[in-house]
């Protein structure tokens, strides 16, 4: 057996960079969830009426629910293609710690699915008549929250790789686990809306992100190994 010559940092960078490169070549994988995000937010004024005061009251919740649904949709692209063409198997056999490689993969996914949502959010918040003072808190909460969602989702996505109809099942697994993220994210935005300090929920989101980054890759790697059996 040949010795592993690639260091941990280099291996992670290669995986990370590959995923970004693939995403830039198949741009729809990044753009579709954002378009979905915008469309879901559009549904609410259509369903509830265009009254600005009503929309302003709901803006935080609406943007956050839409972001949660859109990040679920984006999870399909995390492992599915690599599972089908055998890349995931090669990563498992590469001799590098699988959890570490999946951490890099999930970080890339966070960049690709989270940043577009963060960028789109101010426009959507403005369309829901939210005051411009909340934009900073909304973007921060989304940046942290989409990270937690990516890492939680990576476990759900890996667990459902080997099943038929993975998408709906994955949503059933991930949604209950994702509810705390929704609570803190929406609450931070809500507090900023009322002019109260929003640091508390934001710090809690950050704590959850650190916990998810620490633990989720291990669960994902166990799940990927089970799916590859």
């Amino acid at each position, binding site marked *: 057996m040949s010795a592993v010559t690639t260091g941990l940092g280099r291996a992670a960078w290669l995986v990370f960079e590959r995923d970004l490169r693939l995403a830039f070549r198949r741009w729809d994988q990044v753009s579709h969830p954002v378009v979905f995000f915008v469309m879901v937010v559009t549904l609410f004024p259509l369903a509830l009426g265009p009254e600005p005061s009503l929309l302003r009251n709901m803006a935080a919740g609406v943007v956050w629910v839409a972001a949660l649904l859109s990040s679920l949709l984006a999870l399909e692209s995390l492992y599915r293609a690599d599972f089908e063409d055998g890349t995931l198997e090669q990563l498992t056999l590469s001799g590098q710690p699988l959890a570490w490689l999946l951490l890099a993969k999930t970080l890339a996914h966070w960049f690709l699915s989270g940043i577009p949502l963060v960028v789109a959010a101010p426009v959507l918040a403005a369309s829901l008549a939210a005051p411009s003072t909340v934009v900073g808190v909304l973007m921060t909460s989304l940046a942290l929250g989409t990270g937690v969602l990516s890492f939680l989702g990576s476990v759900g996505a890996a*667990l459902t790789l*080997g099943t038929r109809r993975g998408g709906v099942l994955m949503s*059933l*697994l991930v949604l*209950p686990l994702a*509810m*705390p993220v929704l609570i803190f994210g929406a609450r931070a935005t809500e507090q900023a809306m009322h002019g109260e300090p929003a640091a508390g929920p934001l710090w809690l989101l950050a704590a959850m992100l650190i916990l998810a980054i620490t633990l989720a890759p291990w669960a994902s790697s*166990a799940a990927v190994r*089970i*799916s590859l059996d």
Partner: protein
Amino acid sequence: MGTWTWFHKLASPPHFYRIAGRLIPWFAVPAALLIAGGLYGGLVRAPPDYQQGEAFRIIYVHAPSAWLSLVCYTTMAVAAAVGLIWRIKLAHALAAATAPIGASFALLCLATGSLWGRPMWGTWWEWDARLTSQLILFFLYLGYMALRSAYDDLGRADRASAVLAIVGIVNVPIIHFSVDWWNSLHQGSTVIRKGGPAMPPSMLVPLLMCFAGFTLLYAALACIRVRAEVLERERNATWLRELPPA
């Protein structure tokens, strides 16, 4: 005989099948007596609450099922972890057998809570913290069972659902805390609190009997269901053919 030998022997399906079969009446009979006694004491003998009147009596079903829904989830996660780490199939069988029981207790807790909410809060459903985290716990059970049924291969279903149960148990305190922080309307704890229980013994004793009875009921149900799981998993094994007909 060392603990390990005993443990290994217990983990062998034929041995466990026999022992569990013998244990069922030892759990079921006390469970029936305790629940009957507790419900009689709680529903008939205990005085009505000075504030809530007769409606408080729902606690004799509500609180034990809430407790059991958590006990079941913990048992499920610990059994799943044991099965995953030491590759003990019987532990997986216990986890699989526990999930529907726990989901039923969670549903029972939600249903009784909503029945109690009608006269007390004036609504069937209130977005109260404890009710909501119980609901999310019920969703976690549903996800676990959905994942199990999505796999055709039993071994993969066992291991995949074990990972999910472990991720779930890490999340349960986070969910509980976050929902608590989100909104709390539920009354505080009456039994376990500083300065002793805020309940006279005529109310407390039946409640404790119900707690013990429900827990034993779970043990009996778990024995029955794990035996069924063992039968299903070992359906081609020779020891099953050698069993005397029931």
